[in-house]
């Protein structure tokens, strides 16, 4: 298990390098002069501009800049923005909001998706299954931000049950509506995967054996079928947690939540490359760490994959 863990961590290295390089290169290609964006309408004296360019290594070749950045990253240094604030601090300040949103959405998605999926899988081919399928199609077919806009208008503006935007109401209340919207959109995939997986497992030989030896349907389903059907579902769940961090950007913008998404949009508009790269790098790292955890968790659920 230890060897496997180490190998998986080593496999992450080129992925981190490649993904950060893509982001760094794209940001570096952004049009516009960052110093000009910083000074706005009042031009700075030439010597100051030179000083700033020197201080931020803006004149170094691209690969040197990237190398310096990665070296700093190894020491936990995400760089500083144009106001001298450490980028890591900016991200950590906003991360709890995004994280709370993504986690709430993920848990809601888990509940909705598993409930529909297990229900449909156990009633394979019956009316209940078709009903569950219709639900998932509707969830998939209505764009998430249309649901978001509708929910915001109805529950936030017209009924006034929750604040239509912002997070003044604190964790459960301010997060429940945006999280539910994200969960509804994302639960369709989970429900389908669960259903398919369960239907496949229910046809397996070992389940015939379990039934043949006289186990009650309840034990067959809960003890044998669900446990085995959950293997692909766990992978999907782990991956989607990281994906939800990325998907939170649009929802954050609609509900005006002060999370990573808002920070990213502001940074792009101000041409603050270090902030953009910092956020993207952070998200890539989170994504890969989740991947790793999922793979390791996999070994606990399904001992067959432990190598």
């Amino acid at each position, binding site marked *: 298990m230890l060897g496997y863990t180490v190998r998986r961590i080593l496999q992450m290295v080129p992925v981190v390098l*490649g993904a950060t390089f893509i982001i760094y290169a794209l940001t570096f290609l952004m049009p516009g002069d960052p110093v000009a964006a910083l000074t706005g309408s009042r031009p700075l004296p030439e010597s100051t501009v030179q000083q700033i360019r020197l201080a931020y290594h803006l004149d170094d070749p691209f690969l040197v800049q990237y190398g310096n950045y990665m070296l700093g990253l190894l020491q936990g240094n995400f760089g500083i923005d144009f106001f001298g604030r450490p980028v890591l601090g900016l991200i950590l300040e906003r991360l709890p909001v995004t994280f709370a949103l993504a986690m709430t959405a993920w848990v809601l998605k888990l509940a909705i998706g598993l409930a529909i999926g297990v229900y449909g899988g156990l009633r394979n081919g019956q009316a209940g299954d078709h009903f569950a399928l219709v639900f998932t199609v509707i969830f998939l077919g209505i764009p998430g931000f249309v649901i978001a806009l509708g929910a915001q208008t109805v529950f936030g503006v017209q009924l006034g049950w929750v604040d239509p935007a912002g997070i003044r109401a604190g964790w459960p209340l301010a997060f429940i509506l945006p999280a539910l919207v994200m969960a509804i959109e994302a639960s369709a995939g989970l429900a389908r995967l669960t259903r398919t997986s369960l239907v496949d497992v229910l046809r397996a030989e070992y389940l015939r054996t379990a039934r043949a030896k006289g186990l009650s349907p309840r034990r067959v389903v809960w003890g044998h079928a669900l446990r085995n059907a959950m293997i692909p579902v766990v992978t999907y769940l782990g991956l989607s947690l990281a994906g939800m961090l990325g998907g939170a950007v649009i929802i954050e913008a609609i509900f005006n939540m002060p999370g990573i998404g808002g920070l990213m949009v502001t940074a792009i508009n101000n041409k603050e490359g270090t902030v953009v790269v910092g956020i993207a790098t952070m998200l890539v790292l989170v994504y890969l760490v989740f991947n790793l955890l999922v793979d390791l968790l996999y070994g606990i659920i399904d001992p067959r994959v432990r190598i």
Partner: protein
Amino acid sequence: MSQNTETTPGTAPATDPLAPTNPITVPSGIRPPAGPPAPAASFRRKPAKKVNRGPVWLKPRFLVSGTIVALMLLMAAFPQLFAGFGSDPTANCDIMNTNQAPSPEHIFGMDIQGCDYYTNVIYGARASILVGIVVTAISFVISALLGSLAGYFGGWVDTLISRACDMAFGLPFILAAIVVLQLFSERTVWTVIFALALFSWPGGVRFMRSSVMEVRNREYVQASRLLGAGNGRIIAKHIIPNSLTPLLVLQTLGIGGVISAEAGLTFIGIGLTPPSVSWGLQLAAAREYISAAPHLLIFPAIFLTITVLGFVLFGEAMRDEFDPKGK
């Protein structure tokens, strides 16, 4: 997604959720003899009987979703057919009529500029449909090419392509698209297509790769090789025809998602910019008048939803028909 893409020839990675699954079926020869069903097996249903009722496209699911898709394609190609010839999104605008509610002459009302909203919504279809179809087509071609190369040749080709996929997968899709889109200050349909297509392929490549790996080891391919067929012939005659349909179906299912992503990005101000006409832009503009002029929000939202739903249903119908095991 699983990172353990070591190249064991012929075995699809067991942990890849996109890999085609092999449903474990009980050979009919060893089915239990028919008799009174045991209570313990009551939750296991017999597979539904397949009734063949004529051509595929006459099935209700195909008919309904196909009609929606065809209508939307027609609307994107020839908006004049729906909005009336000689009309234009910016024709006959009168700022005095700003945000006027729907009336018999203007069934969708007027927008902020006092233009006929119906015409504008009809013309908005083009951007969404174009982005959805072209991005999916690009992704399909890249997936088919890279996926067959990786799956067929294995070895270092596979390692290279799989690692590239891992890297592209390491970037959250929406964030990557946002970073690319910000390279441009004025964004047209083609800019958005470029940004979305740039990171849309890794899922398809992986799918195609495992699909090809499965086909490559079938007996008829081995037979063909023994008869002296070269790599090019085997790929063209056997691998591609037998693994392309599942990929095509998967990609069709993705069109709705792409349309949705475009509208979402445009809505938060990072996608299309004026003077483009699109539902995302209309929805974004409508937000400020949510209580004064709700019709501005409702009509583009309905069109967008019907379009995405139509493409999703169409993809589902295709999949059930051509790739029943992917259900």
